[in-house]
Structures are given as structure tokens and as C-alpha cells.
């Protein structure tokens, strides 16, 4: 007998699961729990629990690095954005990821790795002292539980809309599963499951673009249909960026290049500990440098399973999707449903189960990433640094396990709070720009400029964060302020996020430089292993060209440029 909360075959849901589909979903849950149980015995020391023993290969660290980011918002949110804004949404995968991932691998990773830090706030402590660490750790912990809550809420909402599952059932079952496998096996378990989830996401989602392109008549057929149904602006990435009035996103190219590419993406991919933690688990420096580059290579392919289905929605669906409010008022479908609609269009029994499993896997990998990063930062940088300075190694592991469970419980509370917000995506973008953009300014100056001082780092970080929150509040109180922050009367909400990040990053850098020049610098000997120019980075002359991270980084960047030209 099928439980009532699964409500198979309900006429109000987008897709109807068969028993075969449920078998596939149940098998997935059983497998991730089995992996957690199996790895329990491999997480006995703090190095094991929080950094997976620092023994992951470049491939595993790289796929995990990418998978931790492939959460609920990635799969559902960007497919919806592709329908809403056209191919412009691919900017978040290409210029909004590739250069920064390569930059992390080639420029920043040596300092993170050589300093032997356990976390990004830990690096700040070594470079700028305890106040900077405390500020960034508290901000990060706050952001992480909010993100985790958003992930949970998104997943539960999707399961409700697609399958008719009870929202509370989805939140609690997925949360408990994540809590069990992360608390048991620590980061190693999270990483193993993230790599598994990455493969399942591709196995479950890849058929949609393949069959969609067959139905649309190939790339040329897709393009012709999108132009006819949505407009020419939906198929150009850069051609309509000369003015905010010319493209569906209402953003000028400077916002994408400087706000998204140079600040938000750099901040997220190089200083968000959620993703950096995966790379720190690599077994040597070369693997740590290669991991983000491997991640970048796969990241370039993700639009195929996320952006393309959104565009295919314009080409093959017999009805038009609308915003959430209009959809609710008219009984139609919203942008957010484009991916499940495409799934239901092409996938029969079994394939549908795998597609839904791909969505659940995406949600759970995002949630596990947040929870494991939260446990690490709490244990090392808040509890161990501020509350209990002499915590033993065993105590750290115990705290990490409890913290994972507490983190999940707090996230559940956050999920219920998030239900009050209408636009989850904008909310997340706002959060990124509050904390991530200024943090990038601080870490970058810390790594590249020997003259940056402890006081400069702290006050720069604080000023950047406060200014970002201040700009956000200004627009909330007076929406006309958007034209000043985004520098255009045609700017829309998405543009505001890009420019706010840009300004807060610049404010952080300016304050850091100004305060540093007014305060006494640290002796160069103290900066060894932390700053460019004071650190000896191992050379790679002895390895062949094909084993050098710099070579593969260059290959990835060349492909990235070619993609921009093709989709100009």
C-alpha cells in the first residue's frame, strides 16, 4: 500500500510516479545511508572528519567541489531563469564561474594549501588575526544555515508541486538522511555522496536536452523557435548587453563582467568555504590546483542540462509559462516548473524516477555541503576559537557530529522561516553580496599584498559587509534608489545584486588599503606561506605539460572564450 503523503496519481500534480519510480528513489536513499554507515569508521580524527583525511584525488575533490554547488537552486532555479531571461542565464555558469574557478586553482589554492588551514576563516586568522576570523566565521555560519534552509524549502516545494508530496514530509525525510550520513562519515561521506549525486544528476537529466533537441529539430530548429516565440534577445549572450533596456534581464554588460564575473563569482568560488573545503581535502598541492580546473571543465557543460531545458520550454511547450503570481491567479504554470514539465514530457516509468532522483540528489548535495561546512567553521573558528580554546582532537570530532545535527535542526527552522519569502532566488543573491563579495576583497588583498595589515583586513571586511547591507536596505525602503546603485533607470532586481556586490567589494578594498597604509605592517617573516612574494611555491618543471594545472587551466579558458563567441 502506498502511503498517503506520497499521493501517487493525484490529478493536481505535474507528474505521476509509478511503483518503478519509487523503487529507484528508495534505492537512492538506501545507498546514501549505506555509504554514510560504511564510512563511519573512517572519521575518527578531526582531520578525517572535517577534511576527509586530506587524501582525495583531484577528480574526486573536483567533482565534489562542483557538486556541492549543484543544489536545488541550480537545477530548478536556473532552468526557470533560462525560460525567463533566455540564454543570458548561462552567464552564471560561464563568466560567473569559469575564470574564478581557474583563478582559485592557479593563484589562490597554493596559499590555502601551504598554510595548512582548515577553513577560509582559519586563513584570515593566520593573515589578519582573530577579529577578522571571528567576523567572517560568524557571517559564514549565519549564511550557511540560511542557505541550507533555503535548499530544504526549495526541495520540499518542488516535491509538492511536482509530486504532490507533503511539504513537511519532504523537509524532514531529506534532512534526517543528510544529518545521518554527514554526522556518521563527516566530510568524506559528504564528498562520496556528492560525487554519486553528480553522476545521478547527469544520468537523470541528460535525456531532457537530447530528446528536446530531437523534437525541436536540432540547434537551428531550437534557435528559430525561441526567436519566433520569445524574441531575438533570448538567444544572445552579449549582443544585447549594450543597454539595460535591450535585454530581458535589464542589465548592462559592466554589471555582468565586473559585478558577476569579477566580484560575486570570484567571491563565491574562491572564498565560500562550502566549495573551498572540498578542494582542501585533496591529497597534494597539484591535486588541489587541478581540482577546481576539473570542476571548471564540467561546469562549462552544466548549461546543457539546466539552461537548454529552459530554452526548450519556449520551443516545444504548447503553452506559455508565467511568473508565480500570474500562474497562481490563472491556474497556469510558472517558470519554476519548466524543468519538471520537460521531465514529464519525455520520461516514462523508470526514467521519471531517475529524473526525480536527480532533483533530490541535487537538493541533498547542496544541503550536505552547507551542513558539513557549517560544522567545520563552528567547531574550528567559533567554538574552538572563542568558546573552548583547548578542545582535544576527540572533542572536535564529537563537536563536529553534534554540530551537524544541530545545523540540520537550525536549517529546518530556517526552511520554515523562508516560506515567508516570495522570491527565493533574489534572496540568495542578496545574501551572497552581503558576505561573499567583501570577503573576496579581504582574502585577495591578504594573499597578494604584503602591506595589508590586520586592522586593514578587519575594517575593510566590516565596511564592505555593512555597506552591502546598507545598499540592500536603501532599495528596500526606496525602490527608486535602484537607478543609482545599478547606474540605469532601466535596471531590474537582478542588476541590483550585481552592482551591490561590485560596490561592496570596492568599498572593502578601498578601506583595507586606506587603513593598511595608516597602520604598521607585519614583518615579512610572519607572512611566509600566506602571501605572494613571501611564500615559496613549489615549481612543476619536473612534470610533463599534460600534468600541469596551468596547461589545463589555459585549455579551459580558451574553450570558455570560444563559447562566448559562439553564443555572442
Amino acid at each position, binding site marked *: 500500500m502506498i502511503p498517503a503523503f506520497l499521493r501517487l496519481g493525484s490529478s493536481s500534480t505535474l507528474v505521476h510516479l509509478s511503483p518503478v519510480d519509487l523503487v529507484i528513489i528508495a534505492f537512492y536513499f538506501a545507498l546514501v545511508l549505506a555509504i554514510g554507515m560504511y564510512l563511519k569508521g573512517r572519521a575518527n580524527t578531526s582531520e578525517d572528519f572535517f577534511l576527509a583525511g586530506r587524501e582525495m584525488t583531484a577528480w574526486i575533490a573536483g567533482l565534489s567541489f562542483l557538486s556541492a554547488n549543484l543544489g536545488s537552486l541550480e537545477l530548478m532555479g536556473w532552468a526557470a531563469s533560462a525560460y525567463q531571461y533566455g540564454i543570458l542565464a548561462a552567464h552564471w555558469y560561464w563568466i560567473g564561474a569559469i575564470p574564478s574557478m581557474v583563478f582559485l586553482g592557479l593563484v589562490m589554492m597554493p596559499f590555502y594549501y601551504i598554510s595548512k588551514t582548515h577553513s577560509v576563516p582559519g586563513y584570515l586568522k593566520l593573515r589578519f588575526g582573530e577579529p577578522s576570523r571571528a567576523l567572517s566565521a560568524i557571517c559564514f555560519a549565519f549564511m550557511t544555515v540560511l542557505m541550507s534552509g533555503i535548499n530544504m524549502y526549495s526541495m520540499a516545494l518542488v516535491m509538492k508541486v511536482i509530486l504532490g508530496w507533503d511539504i513537511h514530509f519532504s523537509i524532514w525525510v531529506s534532512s534526517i538522511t543528510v544529518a545521518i550520513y554527514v554526522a556518521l562519515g563527516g566530510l568524506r561521506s559528504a564528498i562520496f555522496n556528492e560525487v554519486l549525486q553528480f553522476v545521478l544528476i547527469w544520468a537523470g537529466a541528460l*535525456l531532457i536536452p537530447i530528446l528536446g533537441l530531437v523534437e525541436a529539430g536540432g540547434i537551428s530548429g531550437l534557435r528559430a523557435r525561441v526567436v519566433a516565440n520569445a524574441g531575438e534577445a533570448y538567444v544572445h549572450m552579449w549582443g544585447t548587453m549594450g543597454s539595460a533596456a535591450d535585454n530581458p534581464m535589464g542589465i548592462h554588460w559592466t554589471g555582468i563582467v565586473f559585478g558577476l564575473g569579477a566580484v560575486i563569482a570570484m567571491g563565491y568560488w574562491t572564498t565560500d568555504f562550502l566549495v573551498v573545503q572540498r578542494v582542501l581535502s585533496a591529497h597534494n598541492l597539484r591535486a588541489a590546483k587541478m581540482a577546481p580546473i576539473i570542476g571548471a571543465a564540467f561546469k562549462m557543460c552544466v548549461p546543457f542540462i539546466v539552461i537548454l531545458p529552459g530554452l526548450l520550454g519556449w520551443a516545444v511547450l504548447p503553452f506559455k509559462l508565467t511568473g508565480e503570481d500570474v500562474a497562481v491567479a490563472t491556474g497556469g504554470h510558472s517558470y519554476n516548473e519548466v524543468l519538471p514539465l520537460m521531465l514529464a514530457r519525455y520520461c516514462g516509468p523508470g526514467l521519471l524516477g531517475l529524473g526525480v532522483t536527480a532533483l533530490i540528489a541535487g537538493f541533498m548535495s547542496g544541503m550536505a555541503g552547507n551542513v558539513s561546512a557549517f560544522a567545520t567553521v563552528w567547531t574550528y573558528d567559533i567554538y574552538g576559537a572563542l568558546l573552548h580554546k583547548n578542545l582535544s582532537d576527540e572533542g572536535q570530532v564529537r563537536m563536529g557530529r553534534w554540530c551537524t545535527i544541530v545545523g540540520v535542526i537550525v536549517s529546518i527552522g530556517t526552511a520554515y522561516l523562508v516560506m515567508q519569502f516570495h522570491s527565493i532566488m533574489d534572496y540568495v543573491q542578496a545574501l551572497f553580496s552581503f558576505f561573499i563579495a567583501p570577503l573576496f576583497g579581504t582574502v585577495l588583498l591578504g594573499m597578494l599584498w604584503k602591506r595589508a595589515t590586520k586592522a586593514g583586513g578587519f575594517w575593510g571586511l566590516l565596511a564592505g559587509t555593512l555597506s552591502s547591507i546598507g545598499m540592500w536596505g536603501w532599495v528596500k525602503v526606496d525602490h527608486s534608489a535602484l537607478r543609482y546603485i545599478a547606474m540605469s533607470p532601466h535596471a531590474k532586481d537582478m542588476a541590483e545584486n550585481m552592482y551591490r556586490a561590485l560596490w561592496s567589494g570596492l568599498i572593502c578594498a578601498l578601506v583595507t588599503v586606506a587603513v593598511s597604509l595608516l597602520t604598521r605592517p607585519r614583518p615579512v617573516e610572519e607572512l611566509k606561506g600566506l602571501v605572494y612574494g613571501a611564500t615559496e611555491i613549489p615549481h612543476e618543471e619536473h612534470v610533463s605539460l599534460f600534468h600541469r594545472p596551468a596547461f589545463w587551466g589555459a585549455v579551459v579558458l580558451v574553450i570558455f572564450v570560444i563559447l562566448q563567441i559562439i553564443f555572442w
Partner: protein
Amino acid sequence: MSADTSHSRTISIWFFIGISLLVNGVVIFGAGVYELIQPPPPEVRVVLFHYHASVWWGAMLAALGGFYCRHFSPSRTNI
């Protein structure tokens, strides 16, 4: 692609992935064959039903999973 074999006695992640692909592939292939023998009514068929995606996609996943299970089997990669 190398497996994480640096820590002896840890089963490779690729073996778990192999199990997942193999089981899912077999189930999907079976469902596809069943639909081939007993096709659903036209009004409930998915778009492009005549391509029988479940059959070839399921077979492909099962074959890939079988390869991973064998290549990264604990008896071959451990110790």
C-alpha cells in the same frame, strides 16, 4: 580517471557509483522492455515514445555501471 585508492581498505567511490548505475539501469531497462511489450494507451504516452528511450538509456546505464562495478570492485582495488 583515477580512483581514490590512496587509503587502503576504503572501497572506491566509483564502485558505489557503479552499483547505483547498474541497479538503476537494470530497473529502467526492464520498465522500457515492459512498455515495448505492453505499450500504454496513446493518450498517456510521453512525447517521442516511439524512440523507447527507457530501453537504450537503461541499457547504457547498466553497461556503464557493470563496467565500474567490475573495474573498481573491492577485490581488485583494495589493499
